[in-house]
């Protein structure tokens, strides 16, 4: 999901790195040129047979001239991407407390299962009698998702969380159209929402109306009720919300919304806090996407691919998009066109969804089981509360009381220190941790959103706490300059985002400036 860390910054000049080497490499930190700067013509990392001589059927449309791709051998490619990988922080390397992103352990059994030829080497358009196991797997995943949420229907096809929002909000529009209520165009979105929520609503022609948070970090119920009216189509609410808090009035909110004729879309980004303990159906939700890459551990992969199935209430179930799987007396069928009794709103994607992610998520579910999923949620909540308890005397919690799976701080503890949230996060990098989510949610000043997940040991959390406490003390002690210079121990120090945006260089060019800058 999105992290609103996108505010761009231009670093102040700091002291340069002291150690100079002839190679430019620094121990295990190896400088690596672009593939385009390493390739030579005539070299390749594959051996292909000579193409048989045939009469060309290209209609005179053969490419003229070269493409410009570099030629590299297999060992060069291995080394290049291995070196690149070593410049990344990852869950496998350490605690990755990026709030709202749920950087939990990615089990390798999931990867192994996704690569079984019977699951990876099947074509989406093979005759359905040759893919009964794949359809059974989708059906089984749907069963788990429906049971965990208590919802009667699920759309598996959305390609990511934001695509799931798009799916859910289209279903709501379809339902409103069916009721002849096209005039309902206003969608209520809390100020604390992920940016995708208002963007999704706007992309479907809805008018976005912000609702404020109260002093507890929850929806201001009175303000919400005052916004209800005959033009309200839906509420888009994240629960647990982006402050890491459960909305205690959610049942009342749902009731008031339904009484006013609106639908309840829940952003399920934080389902990992409650899976196995709370069923969204019991909260009055009409549609909710589930990020398989968060709650069910499919790998984040440097930013994707995601997968965002959407569960639907009875009211929205008829609108599940194409294609979908049904089980009948002749086995499983893939429904690819409209059939009687259903009102699918259309197709969202080229094929049937992120099958590779379905395999991984189901593997996670079968491994954890009903008991393990519940335990994982509880441990995630326990870990976040433990951090909150251990840090609340030196950092400033944004709100009172326990949190769910992530704890939120504001920047009051940095007041007058000359250290910003950004500086604090960058200093954490030198401590060997990935920073928390910064400046999100927007309702909290200088927000620091910390989500440890259930994967961490108490010892790892204690180590993290020790670093944060030390940094908080150093900020207080007036060491602002050290924070401004951080990080200092990374392959690159703070990068000039302003320059990147003002003079965009988005690709390598033979005549480009890339090489000079490198030297």
């Amino acid at each position, binding site marked *: 999901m999105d992290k609103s860390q996108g505010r761009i910054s231009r670093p102040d000049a700091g002291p340069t790195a002291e150690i100079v080497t002839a190679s430019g490499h620094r121990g295990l930190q190896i400088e690596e040129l672009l593939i385009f700067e390493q390739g030579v013509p005539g070299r390749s990392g594959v051996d292909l047979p000579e193409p048989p001589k045939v009469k060309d059927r290209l209609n005179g449309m053969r490419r003229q001239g070269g493409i410009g791709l570099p030629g590299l051998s297999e060992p060069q490619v291995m080394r290049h991407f291995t070196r690149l990988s070593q410049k990344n922080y990852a869950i496998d390397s350490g605690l990755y407390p990026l709030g709202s992103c749920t950087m939990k352990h990615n089990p390798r059994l999931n990867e192994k299962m996704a690569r079984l030829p019977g699951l990876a080497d099947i074509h989406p358009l093979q005759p359905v009698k040759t893919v009964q196991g794949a359809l059974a797997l989708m059906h089984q995943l749907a069963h*788990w998702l429906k049971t965990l949420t208590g919802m009667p229907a699920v759309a598996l096809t959305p390609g990511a969380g934001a695509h799931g929002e798009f799916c859910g909000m289209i279903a709501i529009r379809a339902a409103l159209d069916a009721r002849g209520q096209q005039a309902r165009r206003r969608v209520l979105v809390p100020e604390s929402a992920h940016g995708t929520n208002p963007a999704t609503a706007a992309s479907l022609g809805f008018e976005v109306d912000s609702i404020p948070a109260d002093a507890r970090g929850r929806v201001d119920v009175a303000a919400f009720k005052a916004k209800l009216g005959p033009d309200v189509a839906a509420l888009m609410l994240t629960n647990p919300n982006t402050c890491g808090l459960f909305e205690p009035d959610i049942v009342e909110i749902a009731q008031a919304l339904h009484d006013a004729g609106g639908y309840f879309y829940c952003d399920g980004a934080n389902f990992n806090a409650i899976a196995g303990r709370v069923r969204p159906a019991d909260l009055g939700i009409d549609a909710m996407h589930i990020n398989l890459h968060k709650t069910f551990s499919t790998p984040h992969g440097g930013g994707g691919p995601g997968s965002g199935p959407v569960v639907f209430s009875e009211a929205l179930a008829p609108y599940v998009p194409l294609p979908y799987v049904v089980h009948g007396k002749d086995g499983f069928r893939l429904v690819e066109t409209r059939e009687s009794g259903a009102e699918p709103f259309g197709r969202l994607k080229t094929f049937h969804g992120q099958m590779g992610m379905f395999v991984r998520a189901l593997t996670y579910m079968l491994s954890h089981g009903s008991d393990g999923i519940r335990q994982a949620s509880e441990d995630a909540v326990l870990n976040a509360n433990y951090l909150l308890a251990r840090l609340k005397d030196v950092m400033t919690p944004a709100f009172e009381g326990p949190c769910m799976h992530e704890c939120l701080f504001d920047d009051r503890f940095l007041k007058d220190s000359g250290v910003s949230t950004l500086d604090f996060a960058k200093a954490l990098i030198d401590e060997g941790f990935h920073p928390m989510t910064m400046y999100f949610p927007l309702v909290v000043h200088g927000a620091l959103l910390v989500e440890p997940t259930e994967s961490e040991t108490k010892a790892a959390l204690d180590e993290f706490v020790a670093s944060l406490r030390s940094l908080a003390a150093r900020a207080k002690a007036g060491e602002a300059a050290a924070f401004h210079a951080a990080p200092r121990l990374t392959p690159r120090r703070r990068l000039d985002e302003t320059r990147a945006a003002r003079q965009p260089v988005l690709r390598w060019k033979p005549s480009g400036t890339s090489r000079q800058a490198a030297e």
Partner: protein
Amino acid sequence: MRYLPHTEADRRAMLQAIGAASVDELYRDVPASARRKDPVDLPPHQGELAVERELMALASQNRPAGSMASFVGAGAYRHHVPASVDHLIQRGEFLTSYTPYQPEVAQGTLQMLFEFQTQVALISGMEVANASMYDGATSAAEAVLMANRVTRRKKALLSGGLHPHYRETVETYGRWGGFDIKSAAPDPAGTEDLAALIDGETSCVVVQNPSVFGQIRDLSALAAAAQKAGALLVVVVTEVVSLGLLKPPGAMGCDIFVGEGQSIGNALNFGGPYVGLFATREKYVRQMPGRLAGETVDVDGRRGWVLTLSTREQHIRREKATSNICTNAGLCALSFCIHLSLLGEDGFTQLAQLNHARAAQLAEKLGTIKGVTVLNDSFFNEFTLKLPKPAGPVVDRLVDKGVLAGVPGSRLWPDRPELADHLIVAATETNTDADMDLYARALAEVL
């Protein structure tokens, strides 16, 4: 539970530090009516061995394309992926990292994305590419949205050679997102006159090359006609290996290139995850959807990479964003990038030649079977047959002979009975002479 590290003693100690008697206290904000005392009604946790057995049982009910002579294409293609690709993408530093929001600890992902963007721009002949989209069809839909923004118009014209799933996806975005679509009728012969359908309201013309039927067209005149009318030309390529041999969209006046990148580096995966490609002209870059990696320098003046131009994106712009997208197909883009790095100029070109040659051989073989006609006057690695009977049952019967014969017209156009005897057939470097002989023999037998 092997993934959960806490002992009961850990949990007690942590609860004590928190000052809570039980974990239930931490859930006290959940309304009483929604609190569940017991686990939901699903099976309990299992060890690796048991889970593996269960998944393998499901997998064994499928017939992998590689276990048969497979000629299925129409938007997803079975190619050989070098072993090193899958090895590299499983490095934890790639697999288990997130979106590179903290560039100092994500230079690996960012540099890779910069290389990926460059590769996509090079093979498509376009000026600038983004860091990938969900897949080809969503990429096409986003291209139409972008064309609508650029031209301030709201009507897309779709070619009859466009893959019907792409058309249906664009239609979903149009129907619910508020733009109009005019779709030309399916065009197996590749003779439609799209230029004649462009009017002053048209924001873009979306055309696939090679078409879903396999036909190759020079789109230069169409591009000129579109641009003369103030519209953009969107070119869709579902088989990107073709770009190793064919004149690229950028050389034909294309304004937005959209591709399905699965063919390079990615398995069939029963339809996903795949990797949508998206490229355009430099002048439109600020109207582009999706993530972009850009070059910059760090505070010491060393070259590095960051995500850039994010003021287009939803986490900054919220309801004014160019798109609600907040992921790319990172790991699939990495597979693409590694595979194309291995191929290089020579390998990519040769792979394309090999695909074309295989398809030409197959068309030759199948075209001589009595009653079978190859409809194409041109093709890359995929062509359309007209059979003397409906293709669906023929495909089903060929399964029993060990052949995945292609995609019958009835599967893609169930509402078009006139296409029921059409069969879309793809050949790649993975098909052997024996596969092709088997196909020709078996097809002759069932007809």
